[in-house]
């Protein structure tokens, strides 16, 4: 592990985040906007249809995981047919060494990178820089983060925690931009700077949202177009992809590549839905000359063999982060490693060890929103609970208890968060019946959990006094 985990400092990091007004504002706005956009798009036709699409997406991922070893072999064959050179890496050290070897083999000096959470896990940038390569992140958010020397705080919006003024200051300080308050001017400035990098880069590194085993293709989604640049302009392209990104057929891909942006940013399709099929063909006249796929394990095969295998279905849309009352109040950095929010609270202990992330299974009020919004229906609250059991069995629960109390306090101190938890509980009961996640799990195992009132006191209060009802205007403002 290259990135030093700070997850055991969760409580202190959470306190720091909770006292940062700018962060509170930025994360609150970002997550709220995405949360409502998702609702509008996923359920544009009907709740029933949206739920059916979630089930279809979940089935495609579960089926691919069930057949994973066979699909990896099938994908390897078809990737090779498409001209890819396929490599395998057990851990971060192997993956990074493969990247360095490829760079040396092709005389690479400059590298442009499109957004990849996997390379955050692997610490690829630091390794390449230590080897003397120049590495530029090209997703605008990642670019800002790299300039500021930080890590992404959200899976989809890596710089969600920063205000416009903070971003301006980064550009002025690091690149000498003429100060401006206009987001358009900042984007235009970054475009000019990065265009130079794109045109002179020797190698482009990307991740992959999907690998289609049937055809040997990589699916990438993006809005800016930087991922197209990184995979089209340099003479060498390297895609680093976790082994869990496999899907069997193009038909499955067609479902998932639409469910992903609908769930993430509320777009029906991202601006660029990019399908990569190897190096540029002889007759084409552009595209990379050499194209590599590195299939990375880095802990995934260990998770595959456990009761947590379902978490490998994750398509990294960030919806659970946008919905989580804990994430919404502190952002992703408090989680202390690569992934924040509910998915991070599950993945981090699984990847770096429960003892190195003791508070994270408790970094949740277990309101159930994360499962409810998950496009592939991962039982995140169930897993958080299961991780707590693992801790109890291993005798590591003191820090966890402190974190649980902290989360309870956060849930209780904000009316919106309190309401969100209540709403999720009502919806959750319809799905889960008497099974109650969280501290109520034991209790409800042996008792019938009383039904929630269909409407909360807060809702009834609002309905009976229309003048106090601000929810519709809030919604319009966010639309």
């Amino acid at each position, binding site marked *: 592990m290259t990135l030093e985990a700070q997850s055991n400092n969760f409580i202190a990091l959470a306190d720091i985040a909770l006292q940062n007004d700018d962060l509170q504002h*930025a994360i609150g*706005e*970002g997550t709220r*906007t995405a949360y409502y956009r998702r609702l509008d798009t996923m359920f544009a*036709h009907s709740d029933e*249809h949206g739920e059916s*699409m979630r089930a*279809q997406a979940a089935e495609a991922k*579960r089926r691919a995981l*069930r057949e994973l*070893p066979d699909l*990896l072999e099938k994908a390897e064959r078809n990737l090779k*047919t498409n*001209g890819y050179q396929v490599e*395998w*890496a057990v851990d971060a050290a192997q993956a990074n060494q493969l990247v360095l070897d490829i760079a040396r083999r092709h005389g690479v000096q400059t590298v442009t990178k499109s957004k990849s959470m996997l390379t955050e896990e692997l610490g690829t940038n630091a390794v390449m820089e230590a080897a003397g390569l120049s590495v530029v992140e090209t*997703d*605008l*958010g990642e670019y800002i983060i790299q300039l500021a020397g930080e890590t992404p705080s959200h899976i989809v919006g890596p710089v*969600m925690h920063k*205000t416009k003024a903070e*971003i301006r200051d980064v550009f002025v300080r690091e690149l000498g931009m003429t100060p401006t308050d206009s*987001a358009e001017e*900042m*984007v235009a400035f970054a475009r000019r700077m990065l*265009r130079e990098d*794109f*045109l002179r880069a020797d190698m482009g590194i990307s991740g992959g949202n999907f690998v289609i085993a*049937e*055809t040997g293709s990589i699916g990438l989604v993006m*809005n*800016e*177009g*930087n991922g197209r*640049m990184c995979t089209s302009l340099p003479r060498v392209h390297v895609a680093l992809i976790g*082994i869990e990104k496999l899907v069997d057929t*193009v*038909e499955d*891909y*067609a479902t998932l590549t*639409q469910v992903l942006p609908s769930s993430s940013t509320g777009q*029906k*399709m*991202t*601006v*660029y*839905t990019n*399908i*990569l*099929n190897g190096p540029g*063909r002889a*007759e*084409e*006249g*552009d595209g990379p000359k050499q194209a590599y796929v590195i299939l990375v*394990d880095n802990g995934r*095969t260990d998770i*595959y063999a456990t009761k947590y*295998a*379902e978490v490998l279905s994750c398509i990294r849309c960030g919806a659970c982060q946008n919905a989580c009352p804990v994430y919404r109040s502190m952002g992703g950095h408090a989680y202390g490693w690569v992934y924040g929010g509910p998915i991070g609270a599950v993945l981090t202990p699984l990847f770096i060890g429960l003892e190195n992330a003791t508070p994270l299974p408790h970094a949740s009020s277990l309101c159930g929103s994360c499962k409810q919004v998950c496009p592939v229906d991962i039982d995140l609250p169930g897993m958080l609970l299961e991780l707590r059991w693992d801790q109890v069995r291993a005798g590591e629960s003191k820090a966890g208890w402190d974190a649980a109390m902290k989360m309870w306090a956060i849930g209780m101190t904000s009316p919106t968060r309190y309401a969100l938890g209540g709403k999720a509980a009502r919806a959750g009961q319809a799905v889960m019946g008497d099974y109650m996640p969280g501290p109520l799990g034991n209790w409800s195992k042996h008792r019938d959990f009383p039904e929630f009132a269909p409407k909360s006191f807060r809702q009834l209060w609002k309905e009976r006094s229309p003048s106090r009802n601000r929810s519709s205007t809030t919604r319009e403002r966010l639309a």
Partner: protein
Amino acid sequence: MTARETILGKLRAARRPFGEVQPIAERRRMIPRQDLSSQERLQQFIDEAEAVGCFVYQLDENAAFEQIMELIGGDHSVLSWDESQMPFTGLSEMLESLGVSTARHDSGDVRVGVTGVNAALAATGSLVLESGAGRHRNVSLLPDVHIALMRAEHILPDLEAWQEAQKSAGYPAFRQSSNTTLITGPSKTADIAHQLVKGAHGPREVHVIILE
């Protein structure tokens, strides 16, 4: 043992997960398909493309050429797909006669790029561009302004319909083209304070000309 053997070996040694997951009985389309006439389908495509920020025109060849010249403005060079790949004959000749040359496809500072399309998707307002001989990837990527020339016949109902058509043809967009890109609107970002800004890295304007 190689990394490959280690990974596959560990996966095969594990108990296979999700044995209980049932196949989906009736697959759905992400956007339920409406029963539309071809005229209505065309209108759906226009509405969706405009909703994501494209400029859409329905023009005959003469008017289309004028529109293209207006977008090119006073520029002396453009990026372009080969004419054989576009539903518009005589375009390069006409451009040349007006002193506009076709630039090398890797020129990073040309303002306008002209392409055809391989298909278009009505439900999402998307353009499908498959790389190939005379169909350079960069033309729809590097310039500020992307002009896409198409005909109503290119329009399919949705992504699933395109996938089905691809399947019956043996997936050429996944096997013969090194890169197929579905373009839904101009390049954009919301990374700075959640404010939508067009033209992050790719074209900030996408003009779709549907030739009559």
